[in-house]
Structure formats: structure tokens, C-alpha cells
């Protein structure tokens, strides 16, 4: 009788357990809809409240809904906790009942209970049990088993398990797509272990210099601020005035779909501009004469994921001006993507550099010297040892040399100058202005003249280097000697009215500096003495350009001011373009290439278009 009651109870408990389990599983499945932060209803209500913030009843409804959802959520948590314990409890009861039932069933069938307390002890030996079942009602293998049979079957099982196992492993190993990306190339390896690349040690074979001639370079605008980085070109028939609104003087205008603060570069009939955002970064090529957009290509084989390097909008992904040697155009982005594209837009090589310690995003522009592409990769603090100067082979992208730099992050562009017949690359970093042998990367000299966050690039004129340390000092120095030349070679140093963003310009024995407040100062390059100054009272971000005797200044709101680059202030022209200008424009073939925040303008005398040489696309 007890067995019947027991088995009924068993069913009841089992049914209860199943019910609880079902409730919990459905609860789990419905979970997502009940969580307050996933509710589309609430999101919608909030959105509509946002568009109608004064609506008190809507506000009340949001609050009510929010509260209901929260209450529901916490109730569900409570229910889950309860349910788990209920499941556990009912499971335990179920097992106990089941044991009871099976025990009593066994004794009802006349078997012996296993527990001595429930079975009569004396019945054990005299119990006439059926021979085929044991006390548990299990079949009992009485006779010695057929050993061979057992062994064979065990063997079969064993080998089927092994077989399945091996097949599974093989299948996984062979057909699982292995997708480790290729290890980074030399540049990245060198960046990863800068200590392995000694300062100034030549790691590549120095090739016979192969690059554009100086003359070719001077005719074009191959890098930031022109071939020699001075922002100065000889007399040219660029117009004094133009009108972007009416189109007077505007040869063409092309929309730039991607933002960037980098300057255009020009080679023969090609104009290159870079632009980028978090999603994509590209080099744009235009035809100089027609303004036809030729191509827009990334410098990685695929549009690689935007890394988390996400510079502020005001510097952006494309702050570095590209460089070209007439064969390829080289571009680098704040993401560290560096690549070379030929003039047809084919990717020749690419590298991935590490700029992640650069707080504002990489902005140093590229410079080509012979067959070397120079990358000033300064970042972090000086003591981090993260800053390097790289020289890559322009044809292959292979590292030629690496020089570790004892400086912190900077946003200046290197400058290649020739001193005593030897080419050296001058770099401005915090706190050192340094000269490296451009062929080997060996450090020649350094001077402790800089500090803080550096934006203006150094300029060279009349045997002097002019280095700007914003808000700190403007220093003139002769790049002679070796080692620390701070005390020996500093010619003069000013601490007042130091420009902040635009780079200085040297014209003969005059040094012009402009700052973001629109303050233009003319100084004597030999002594640093102020000759005149003028306040334009508008923001200037771009560095000034000197064409012949005229100095063009580009105000950030789109104003163009032309003054005479002479010992006395003389305003030649002032007009507006109507579009924001941050990037320093380019000058080549009698035309200005002006990048505004939306467009690329080609400005020139429409009646006399200086024909660019046709470029053979190699």
C-alpha cells in the first residue's frame, strides 16, 4: 500500500518539478523583453519625450513604465532564485520518494532489502531467490562471462571511440580556418623592439641615391611647405586676387569627401590630398589641369579596421601631409597606416606603424630624400622611449634605418638641409632639436631649445635654423658641430611673441612669424629684433607662403591677406574665400592649391595656364 501512495506522491512531485522547470525556462527565454534597458517601449517613450520635453503626461508615463520594468526585472530575479530552490527541494523529495518506492517494490517482490534494518536478517541465507535476478532486481551474470566476447566488444568500443576522436581532431585541425594575420614587417618589428635597433645604426643597405633631382623638386610641391620646407617659391605668376564666390581666378574646384588638415602636394599634373575619418582613410588624386578626380585609395590593401586611435576632430586622422617623389605618393594617417601608391593609384607597399601613444594623433608630415622616406614618429613622453625617426626605402617600404629619439611627442615636420656638403635631417622634438645624418640615421648634434607641445616645424635660412617652442622660445641656431651644441651654437633666443601653430618663414635676412591670433611679426633673422608687426585680428592656422615678394596669409575663416615680404609692412590685398582654411596651401606651376574644409581649389591666372609636364605613369 505504501508503495502505491509513494508512487502517487512521486508523480505529483515529478509534475510539480516539471512545472517549475517549465516556468523557469520560459522565464529565461522571455528575459530579454523584461529587462528595463532592453525595452523598445521605454526607448521609444524616452525618445518622444526628448522631442517634447515639456509634455508632463509623457514624462509621467516614462516614469511609470520605467518603474514597472524595474519592478518586473527584480521580481524575475526573485522568482528565479525561488524557482532554483524549489527545483532543488522538489528534486530531493522526488529522489527520496523514488528510492522509497523502489525499495518497497523490491520487498513486495520478495527480495531482500539492502538495509539490514528493513530486511529480516535470517531470510538472507535461506532466501530462495530466482537465480536470474539479484537483490536489486538486476540481471546477474552468473556464469563466468565469455571473456573473449567481452574483450572483443570492449576493443571495438575502444577503437570506435578512438576513431571518432581522431577524426574529430583531424577534421578540426585540417578544416578549421587558421587566420592568424601575417606578422608585421620590419618597421613594426623595429617599433616593437626599439632597443634592438641601436641609435643611428644602419640596418639596411644604403642604395645609390635615386630620386628626383633638386630641380624637379623645386618645380613641384612634393611635401609640406614645398620642396625645401620653407614655404617659399621664386617669383611666379600666381594671381594676387581671386574670388571663390564668383569663380574669378578659380581654375577648378573639387569636393573633398573626407576631412583632413593635411596640405595638398603637387607633382607635374597630379595633385594629391589625404582625408580620413574613423571608418576610412584615403589618398585622393586629381588632375592639376582639369581638376578631374582620378582616384581615391586607402594605403592598406583592404580598408583595415579603424583602430581605437581616435584623435580629436581638430587634428583628425589625416593631419600629415603626404609626400611624393614623382613615382609614388606616400601617405601616413594617425592610425599608423603608412603606404605608397603609384600615380595610377596602385598600392606599392604598406606598413603599419604604432602611433598609439600620440595623444592628438600623428601629424608630422612625410619627407622624401632621394630614395628614403623619412617618418618622424614621436609620441609619448621622452622617458617612454617611444619616439623614433624612421627611414624607409621608397621603393619597397623596407626599413633602411631607425634612430631612437630621446624626445616626447611632437607634431612637427622634419627638414632635410645640407650643411658642409652633407645632408642632415633636422627634427624638432620635446626637448631636443636634433640633426641626424640622413644617409645613416646617426645623430650629429642636438640642442636643448624646445619644450612642450610642438606644432611649428623648424625652418632653415641663411645658415640658421629657426626652431619654435610655442609660448616658450624662438631660437636661432647654427647647425654646426657635433654633440650637444646648445651653448655653442645658439645665436639668439626670444621668449616673447613666440608663434604657436603656423611655422615661421625666412625671406632673405627677414624672419616672419604668424600666430593663431593673427599677429604677424617681421624680425631680423640675424638678431631676432622685431622690425614691424601687424595684427590681422583673425585666426590663422595655416603657415604663410611666400611667392616672390608677396607673402600670402590664409586666415582660418577663409580670409586671404597678401602683404609685401619686406622690411616695411605693406598690405597688398585682403579678401575672403568664404570657406574655412586650416591647411597650408601648395604652389606649383603658377597655381595655388588651396584646401578648405570642404573643397580643393585650384587658383591661377585663367588666361595663362602653365602646362604641367605630362607625367608618365610608371
Amino acid at each position, binding site marked *: 500500500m505504501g508503495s502505491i501512495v509513494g508512487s502517487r506522491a512521486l508523480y505529483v512531485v515529478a509534475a510539480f518539478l516539471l512545472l517549475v522547470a517549465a516556468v523557469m525556462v520560459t522565464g529565461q527565454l522571455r528575459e530579454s523583453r523584461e*529587462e*528595463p*534597458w532592453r525595452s523598445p517601449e521605454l526607448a521609444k517613450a*524616452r525618445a518622444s*519625450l*526628448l522631442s517634447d*520635453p515639456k509634455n508632463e503626461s509623457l*514624462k509621467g508615463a*516614462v*516614469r511609470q513604465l*520605467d*518603474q514597472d520594468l*524595474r519592478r518586473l*526585472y*527584480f521580481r524575475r*530575479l526573485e522568482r*528565479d*532564485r525561488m524557482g532554483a530552490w524549489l527545483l532543488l527541494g522538489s528534486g530531493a523529495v522526488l529522489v527520496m520518494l523514488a528510492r522509497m518506492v523502489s525499495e518497497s517494490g523490491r520487498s513486495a517482490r520478495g527480495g531482500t532489502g539492502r538495509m539490514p534494518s528493513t530486511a529480516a536478517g535470517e531470510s538472507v541465507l535461506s532466501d530462495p531467490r530466482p537465480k536470474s535476478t539479484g537483490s536489486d532486481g538486476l540481471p546477474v551474470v552468473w556464469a563466468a562471462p565469455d571473456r573473449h566476447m567481452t574483450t572483443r566488444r570492449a576493443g571495438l568500443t575502444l577503437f570506435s571511440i578512438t576513431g571518432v576522436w581522431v577524426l574529430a581532431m583531424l577534421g578540426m585541425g585540417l578544416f578549421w580556418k587558421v587566420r592568424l594575420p601575417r606578422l608585421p614587417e620590419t618597421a613594426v618589428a623595429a617599433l616593437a623592439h626599439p632597443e634592438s635597433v641601436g641609435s643611428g645604426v644602419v640596418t639596411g643597405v644604403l642604395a645609390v641615391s635615386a630620386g628626383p633631382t633638386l630641380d624637379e623638386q623645386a618645380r613641384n610641391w612634393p611635401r609640406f611647405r614645398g620642396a625645401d620646407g620653407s614655404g617659399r617659391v621664386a617669383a611666379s605668376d600666381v594671381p594676387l586676387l581671386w574670388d571663390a564666390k564668383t569663380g574669378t581666378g578659380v581654375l577648378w574646384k573639387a569636393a573633398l569627401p573626407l576631412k583632413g588638415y593635411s596640405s595638398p602636394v603637387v607633382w607635374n599634373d597630379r595633385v594629391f590630398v589625404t582625408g580620413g575619418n574613423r571608418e576610412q582613410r584615403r589618398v585622393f588624386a586629381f588632375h592639376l589641369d582639369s581638376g578631374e578626380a582620378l582616384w581615391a585609395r586607402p594605403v592598406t590593401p583592404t580598408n583595415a579596421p579603424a583602430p581605437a586611435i581616435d584623435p580629436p576632430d581638430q587634428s583628425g586622422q589625416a593631419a600629415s601631409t603626404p609626400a611624393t617623389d614623382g613615382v609614388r605618393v606616400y601617405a601616413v594617417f594617425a592610425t599608423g597606416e603608412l603606404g605608397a601608391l603609384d600615380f595610377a593609384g596602385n598600392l606599392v607597399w604598406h606598413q603599419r606603424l604604432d602611433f598609439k601613444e600620440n595623444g592628438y594623433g600623428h601629424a608630422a608630415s612625410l619627407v622624401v630624400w632621394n630614395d628614403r622616406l623619412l617618418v618622424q614618429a614621436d609620441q609619448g613622453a621622452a622617458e617612454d622611449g617611444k619616439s623614433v625617426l624612421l627611414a624607409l626605402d621608397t621603393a619597397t617600404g623596407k626599413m633602411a634605418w631607425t634612430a631612437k629619439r630621446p624626445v616626447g611627442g611632437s607634431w612637427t615636420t622634419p627638414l632635410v638641409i645640407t650643411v658642409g656638403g652633407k645632408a642632415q635631417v633636422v627634427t624638432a622634438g620635446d626637448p631636443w632639436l636634433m640633426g641626424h645624418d640622413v644617409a645613416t640615421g646617426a645623430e650629429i648634434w642636438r640642442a636643448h631649445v624646445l619644450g612642450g607641445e610642438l606644432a611649428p616645424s623648424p625652418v632653415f635660412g641663411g645658415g640658421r635654423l629657426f626652431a619654435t617652442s610655442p609660448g616658450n622660445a624662438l631660437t636661432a641656431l647654427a647647425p654646426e658641430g657635433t654633440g650637444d651644441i646648445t651653448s655653442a651654437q645658439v645665436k639668439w633666443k626670444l621668449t616673447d611673441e613666440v608663434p604657436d601653430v603656423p611655422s615661421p618663414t625666412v625671406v632673405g635676412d627677414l624672419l616672419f612669424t604668424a600666430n593663431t591670433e593673427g599677429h604677424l611679426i617681421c624680425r631680423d633673422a640675424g638678431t631676432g629684433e622685431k622690425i614691424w608687426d601687424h595684427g590681422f585680428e583673425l585666426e590663422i592656422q595655416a603657415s604663410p607662403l611666400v611667392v616672390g615678394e608677396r607673402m600670402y596669409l590664409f586666415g582660418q575663416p577663409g580670409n586671404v591677406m597678401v602683404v609685401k615680404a619686406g622690411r616695411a609692412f605693406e598690405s597688398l590685398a585682403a579678401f575672403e574665400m568664404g570657406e574655412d582654411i586650416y591647411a597650408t596651401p601648395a604652389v606649383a606651376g603658377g597655381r595655388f592649391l588651396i584646401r578648405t574644409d570642404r573643397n580643393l581649389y585650384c587658383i591661377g591666372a585663367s588666361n595663362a595656364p602653365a602646362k604641367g609636364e605630362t607625367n608618365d605613369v610608371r
Partner: protein
Amino acid sequence: MLPGPSNDDRTSRREFVRNGLRVAGLTGAGVAVGALSHRGAAADTVWQIDPRKCLSCSRCATECVLEQSAVKCVNWFPICGYCDLCTGYFEPQPIGLDTGAENQLCPTSAILRKFIEDPYFEYKIDEDLCIGCAKCIEGCKLFGNGSFHLQVRHDRCLNCNECAIARSCPGDAFYRAPVEKPYYQFTT
């Protein structure tokens, strides 16, 4: 009391081999213990989050083996700005700077805002309500002082051998902290 080995001759040989192997096993265990202890005394460790690496991805709320995550938001008051417009507390475009549900970022309303003195407000976290979703942390990190941060709460954490959140953390922010220093400590 314990039954001894059989006296049987056949088994005594086997017994001898077994004894030998047992001694070998014990010796091996001894050597292993010696070698392991030579590797340095092992301090017990617990799981913890490095707030500097945390990307506020919200996986802490969902990946923990516990139904309610052992990871909770903590406000470290010494660097809290006590802002009136707390970007960890308020929606990006709050309708008003009050505790109305429509202005709160926290999905479970686990942050308690209390007026201290003009213009300062205290933000305390009710851990029973917090689900570790890191919504507030993102706001505080982006525009505030970053005093809100996620921490593994050791009154809840089971200290699994392999933390399920750590395994899926996109920022690799989990580390094994020594048990004497079970929380991340800011240095100011």
C-alpha cells in the same frame, strides 16, 4: 583493523611491485611538492578589474556565471567631482537635472543622488540594484573624473578558476589580484 594484503604467493609478487610503485609515486609526489614550493610561495589570488583598461562594453553585466553579476559599479569619492551635471548619472541630453526616471542613465536606478551644498551632489551606488552594465562608467570616464569604475565585489564573486567575464573581456582588463589587495587602488 585494516585488512592486510593476501598471503597468497602469487599475489605477494604483485604486492611487491605495487609497493615499489607506491613508494616511487610517493617519492615523485615529494619531489613535485619540493619543486613547486621552490617556485615561490603562492599567494591566493582573486579576480579584479583594472579600470584603466576597462572599455565599458557592458559584458560584465551579462557574462558572469552568477545571475546578478559579481561586478558592480563603485564610486571612489576622493576623485569624484560631485558635479551637478554628473555625466555618469544623467542621460546625454537630460530634460532637467533632477532624479526623474527620464533623466537617469542607470537602467536600474542604482545611483543615489544627494544634494550636499551648492553646487555639489553626492552619488552613491546601491549595489543590490547595480547590474554592472557600465553605462554610468562610460559617461564618467568620457567627460568626468572617472571616479565611477567597475570592480569585482568579493562578497559576491565565487572566484572561479577561470572567470567567464575575463575570458570575454574585450579590453583584457581582468587580472588576478593578490588576496591582500583585492581591489584596484587609485594613485593620486
